[in-house]
């Protein structure tokens, strides 16, 4: 075997030289051994291999040793240690310089750069007035307590200084800078000038600021230590750039603009927050950044860039500066912040409220306050309220119009305000009319805020709505960006519609700035003239221009407006429709969106002309019946839509998908609550209630990074869940509960949420709702309940059992009344009523109850009276000894046997007992709702012999369930039972040594007659105890008695004797009971001397008895 294996290894060696050589190389000794086994030839060959290899090795070794030998001459073991030494030396030099300068230099400043260690990299402008070179920087560092590193090291360097960087370094910024801030040399200069360490953020390299289009990075806030800028003024005063000719305010503003312009916008935002929040805790910036934040873009960006606007347009600045109240409406936030900026020339103090992102409690409110889409959305509601009456009038006229439509050619005018959102804002500034202006909620020139609307001069520069500001600014640097002015929009929109409604009563509002009017009925001679008049009026009233398109259909009117814009008028007569449509891109048609457009493009269809070539059938086949139909019609200019009524909204909701960032579920829950409030408010505003509640969540895709748009939602998964309620609601609490429930279904990490929306659909009018609500609500029940209650109370409280005896009555009443069935839920059955009680009621109450019983009551009572007279029923006052029911021995026997010890079946037993009564039929039990009502009104109606033969537990229950108010009729049950005993003679007088014989046991009577109060009490408790006959239950009751009065020796003896006999009685059969008793007794010992004596007396006896029967001792412990 071993031979085999070695030969195999030999062959493998010969097959692969490399393995052999490596083997020999790595382990020469084994190779030697191997060689002994192998033949010479192979051996020789391996040697040559080895030689070759060693040759190469030797070369490598030599080269290495040669390089090492160079070092060996020097004291450094290698290059690394050389550098360490070099750095050390440089540091020492630097330190020496620093100390000498600080000692010698009277000019040496305070150590503002303490803890700062700079590294100058790349290109710095050679010595000039403004831009220092690295030597000068080194000098500053020396002078002001900083460090200057000749070589970059992540551990020593805190800031990298450079004025320009090569592209490669920019692209690979992280690896180059190691996450350290890259700052311009001006920072050092200005810090020196300010005589304090300024924040480096504004001095970040331009390239980085503009190139880094990422979300704020943690590294950007990597302050090391030292004081942070909180005073801008000093830096301004010390600034090297001369700006002497300009007013101070202006200077500061422009400077700020300059500064912020250099920084990356999002970082500015963060930075400002941190500085403002906590100027002396630079880490605040970090924490603020770490926390995913949501904040109002408006706030942050407007606040920061107010200065930019000021810089770019002095006139505008002068115009707005008179607005002096910094806390005025947020719609004027631009103005606010300019004021604030100017006032903050002393200290950087970004605006006062609501900016600290996560802490912005009113995020949702503010969000919608500043949302244009929200404005447009809610404008509809406003319009509806304002013009509903006229719309209604229009609706009424609709039929006649339809009749007309067939015969007469319709004329529809589409009026659309020109760049509404811009022109409204600038309508009062004629100077801005010809300048490119855009409206945006933020005007940070580098921001990712989207332009909402741009005027025509701006559009000429290529600025479009939906563009990021920074892109727009790139296209048109002189672009003026203004914030929304929602009040103005509302005002102008109202004016706009006022005019339209004045001229024509058939107005279909499309949006706040766009409407169709149907002038067919007006029989206008010249629609163009009419439209022109409207346009002129709009212009005069609002100061804004509107374009109008006139055509025979809504579609064509819209197309005409497109052509007419801006500030024009276009009339497309029906004969020219084809011409206009032919070249019209399909995209321009309403109802054709991106998806459809793409589909059409794939089919080489770009214009309506091309679309017209396709048959209706094939369009319907490709795009579905409806869409195909629409395409076919629209491409021919056919639009059968009427200038219709105002469309009711199908759903009302609120969506937020910007600035949504949460730390944990609690944030989300708070947010949802706010959303609920918002939706609820909107519903209430519209007077509507929603039945279906839909929660939509935008969840960040796992692979999606931070979105390009600052605080945007980015690439998201849209999740949605809804629930339909049985009743429409606008209640915040309901919304909240359901929303929380819906949210729970998503099982989503709060940090992944990028947007949320809550919608209420299946809307119902709140008024109608109210009526429905009333109908089904619990309130209707509650309203009727007092009457019900009173009758119930009468029924219950006064005991209605007197009439139970003859069940025939019950039958009679049942058969006599559907009313009984109808009122079952609310009223006690007629036969449950105590006639005596009813009769004694005041007449008005009686009539009320009679009403409740639908008049049955009176007849019932009279019927009953007759019965009572005729039936010869025993009266309650009859003697006890006269049993109502003759003894039925057989029955009693059966029952007693069956039910023995089965407490659960007591009820059944009672039923049986009643069934045993001759007059009773089995159906009674089913008819009667309460078992209690089965009980006879008094013991007089019970066969005493039946009772006597009952097991004791059962007897107790029967007695217990006797009507309480009947009790006083008898001294006590015991008396009654004594009575039975006397009567039957079955129970003889028992000797005192048989205390537990009888029912109740003998001792009960003895104790009751005793002079000892405690014993009396025990006797009473026995009657109260349940289950009856168990002494443990008596002891239980004694436990709850307080105080326990002591009774003397007699009582002790009595109790001892009682216990002894009890033990004797029970020890064989019920050791559990004995055990419970002794445990209770033991507990009582701590409360009463008497029971201690009893206990001590009993225990030996007990243990003896237990030992005798069970061969052990009872393990007595406390029972809780």
């Amino acid at each position, binding site marked *: 075997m071993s031979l085999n294996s070695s030969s195999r290894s030999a062959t493998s060696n010969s097959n692969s030289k490399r393995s052999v050589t490596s083997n020999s190389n790595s382990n020469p000794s084994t190779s030697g051994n191997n060689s002994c086994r192998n033949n010479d030839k192979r051996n020789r060959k391996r040697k040559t291999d080895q030689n070759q290899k060693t040759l190469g090795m030797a070369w490598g070794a030599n080269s290495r040793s040669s390089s090492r030998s160079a070092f060996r001459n020097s004291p450094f073991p290698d290059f690394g240690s050389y550098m360490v030494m070099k750095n050390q030396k440089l540091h020492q030099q630097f330190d020496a310089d620093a100390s000498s300068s600080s000692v010698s230099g009277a000019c040496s400043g305070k150590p503002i750069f303490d803890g700062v260690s700079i590294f100058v990299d790349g290109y710095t402008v050679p010595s000039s007035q403004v831009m220092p070179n690295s030597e000068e920087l080194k000098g500053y560092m020396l002078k002001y307590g900083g460090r200057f590193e000749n070589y970059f090291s992540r551990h020593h360097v805190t800031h990298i200084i450079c004025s320009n960087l090569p592209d490669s370094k920019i692209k690979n910024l992280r690896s180059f800078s190691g996450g350290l801030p890259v700052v311009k040399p001006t920072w050092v200069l200005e810090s020196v000038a300010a005589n304090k360490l300024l924040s480096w953020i504004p001095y970040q390299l331009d390239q980085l600021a503009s190139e880094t289009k990422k979300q704020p990075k943690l590294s950007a806030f990597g302050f090391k230590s030292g004081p942070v800028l909180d005073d801008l003024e000093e830096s301004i005063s010390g600034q090297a750039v001369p700006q002497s000719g300009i007013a101070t305010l202006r200077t500061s503003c422009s400077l700020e603009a300059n500064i912020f312009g250099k920084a990356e916008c999002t970082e500015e935002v963060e930075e400002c927050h941190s500085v403002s929040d906590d100027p002396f805790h630079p880490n605040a910036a970090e924490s603020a950044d770490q926390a995913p934040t949501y904040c109002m873009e408006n706030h942050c960006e407007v606040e920061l860039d107010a200065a930019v606007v000021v810089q770019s347009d002095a006139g505008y600045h002068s115009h707005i500066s008179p607005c002096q109240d910094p806390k005025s409406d947020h719609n004027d936030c631009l103005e606010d912040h300019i004021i604030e900026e100017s006032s903050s020339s002393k200290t950087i103090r970004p605006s006062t409220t609501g900016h600290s992102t996560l802490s912005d409690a009113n995020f949702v409110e503010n969000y919608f306050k500043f949302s244009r889409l929200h404005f447009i959305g809610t404008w509809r509601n406003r319009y509806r309220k304002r013009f509903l009456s006229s719309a209604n009038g229009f609706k009424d006229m609709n039929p006649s119009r339809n009749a007309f439509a067939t015969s007469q050619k319709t004329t529809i005018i589409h009026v659309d305000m020109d760049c509404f959102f811009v022109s409204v804002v600038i309508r009062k500034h004629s100077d801005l009319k010809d300048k490119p202006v855009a409206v945006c909620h933020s005007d940070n020139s580098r921001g990712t805020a989207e332009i909402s609307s741009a005027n025509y001069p701006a559009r000429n520069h290529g600025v479009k709505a939906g563009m990021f500001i920074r892109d727009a600014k790139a296209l048109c640097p002189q672009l003026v960006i203004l914030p929304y002015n929602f009040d103005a929009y509302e005002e102008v929109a109202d004016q706009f519609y006022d005019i339209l409604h004045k001229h024509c009563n058939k107005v279909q509002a499309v949006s706040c700035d766009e409407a169709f009017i149907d002038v067919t009925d007006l029989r206008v001679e010249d629609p163009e003239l009419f439209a022109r008049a409207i346009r002129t009026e709009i212009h005069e009233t609002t100061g804004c221009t509107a374009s109008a398109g006139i055509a025979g259909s809504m579609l064509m009117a819209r197309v005409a407006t497109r052509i007419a814009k801006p500030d024009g008028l276009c009339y497309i007569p029906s004969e020219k429709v084809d011409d206009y449509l032919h070249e019209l891109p399909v995209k321009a048609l309403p109802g054709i969106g991106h998806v459809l457009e793409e589909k059409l493009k794939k089919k080489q269809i770009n214009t309506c002309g091309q679309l017209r070539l396709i048959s209706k059938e094939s369009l319907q086949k490709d795009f579905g019946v409806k869409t195909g139909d629409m395409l076919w019609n629209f491409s021919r200019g056919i639009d059968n839509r009427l200038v219709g009524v105002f469309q009711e909204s199908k759903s009302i909701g609120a969506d937020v998908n910007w600035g949504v960032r949460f730390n944990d579920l609690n944030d989300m829950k708070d947010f949802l609550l706010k959303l609920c409030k918002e939706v609820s408010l909107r519903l209430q505003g519209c007077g509507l209630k929603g039945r279906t509640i839909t929660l939509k969540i935008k969840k960040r895709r796992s692979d999606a990074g931070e979105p390009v748009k600052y605080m945007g939602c980015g690439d998201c998964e849209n999740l949605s869940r809804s629930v339909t309620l049985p009743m429409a609601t606008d209640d915040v609490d309901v919304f909240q509960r359901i929303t929380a429930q819906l949210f729970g279904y998503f099982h989503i990490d709060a940090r992944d949420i990028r947007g949320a929306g809550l919608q209420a659909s299946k809307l119902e009018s709140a008024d109608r709702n109210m009526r429905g609500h009333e109908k089904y609500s619990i309130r209707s029940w509650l309203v009727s309940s007092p009457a019900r209650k009173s009758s119930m109370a009468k029924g219950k409280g006064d005991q209605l059992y007197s009439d139970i005896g003859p069940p025939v009555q019950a039958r009679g009443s049942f058969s006599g009344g559907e009313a009984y069935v109808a009122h079952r839920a609310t009223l006690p059955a007629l036969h449950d009523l105590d006639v005596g009680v009813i009769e004694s009621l005041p007449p008005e109450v009686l009539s009320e109850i009679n009403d409740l019983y639908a008049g049955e009551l009176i007849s019932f009572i009279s019927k009953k009276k007759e019965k009572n007279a005729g039936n010869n029923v025993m009266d309650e006052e009859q003697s006890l000894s006269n049993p109502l029911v003759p003894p039925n021995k057989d029955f009693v026997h059966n029952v007693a*046997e*069956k039910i*023995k*010890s*089965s*407490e*659960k079946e007591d009820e059944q037993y009672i039923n049986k007992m009643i069934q045993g009564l001759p007059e009773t039929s089995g159906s009674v039990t089913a008819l009667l709702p309460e078992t209690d009502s089965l009980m006879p009104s008094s013991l007089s109606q019970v066969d005493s012999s039946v009772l006597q033969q009952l097991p004791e537990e059962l007897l107790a229950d029967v007695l217990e369930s006797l009507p309480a108010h009947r009790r006083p009729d008898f001294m006590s049950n015991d008396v009654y039972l004594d009575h039975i005993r006397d009567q039957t003679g079955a129970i003889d007088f028992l000797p005192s040594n048989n205390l537990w014989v009888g029912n109740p046991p003998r001792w009960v009577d003895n104790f009751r007659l005793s002079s000892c109060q405690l014993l009396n009490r025990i006797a009473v408790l026995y009657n109260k105890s349940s289950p009856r006959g168990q002494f443990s239950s008596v002891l239980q009751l004694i436990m709850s008695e307080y105080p326990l009065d002591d009774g003397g020796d007699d009582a002790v003896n009595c109790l001892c004797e009682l216990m002894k006999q009890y033990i004797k009685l029970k020890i*064989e*059969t*019920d*050791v*559990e*009971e*004995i*055990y419970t008793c002794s445990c209770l007794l033991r507990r009582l010992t701590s409360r009463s001397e008497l029971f201690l004596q009893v206990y001590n007396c009993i225990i030996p006896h007990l243990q003896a008895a*237990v*030992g005798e029967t*069970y*061969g*052990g*001792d*009872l*393990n007595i412990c406390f029972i809780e």
Partner: protein
Amino acid sequence: MERKDNNQAKAPQGAGEAARILTEFLEVAITCIIFLKGVYPHGAFERRRYMNVVVHRARHPQLRDYIHSSVNGLLPFIQKGLVERVVVIFFDNEDFPIERFVFKVNLNLSYGSKVEQSDLEFSLRSFLIKLPVSESLTKLLPRGCRWEITAYFRALPEASTSKDSELIWIPTDTKQWQQPPLITPIKSMNSEPLGVQLYLEHPSLSEPKP
């Protein structure tokens, strides 16, 4: 002497039925005790319903069989009124009994009326309810313990009556405690014709340790 007569004669119908119900109940109750004491992992039992209460039944066939056959083997003796106590004894690893669950049986053999299971069910059920809540009264078993079912007869059964089923039961010389044990009653029932008392026996404090 009177008992012997009873032994000879077969128990009347009612008592016989009660005995059958009792054995069935004992099988369930003993399994519950075994489950309660955690001798076997809980997975060895499955939840079942007996007399409308949740009980546990052994899943392992051998365990189930042992309990079943031993209790059923008792049936003839119970019917004759011979069985006084049925005890589940837990021994430690030195075969020293540490805990005994005693069912003291009292069957009225002269009871002639018909007995329905439902009549006894209520009382017997209370045992099954009380058992799980009595765990605190019991002792924690040491590792490596052992258990067995022992029946205490009022008199030694005669050899002649041996049938196959009765051969399961053999005389035993289980170690006994020197001192009278401590008794902790768990549940008692006393109805016609059956009375059952369940109590725990623990070695008394003065019991010499082996």
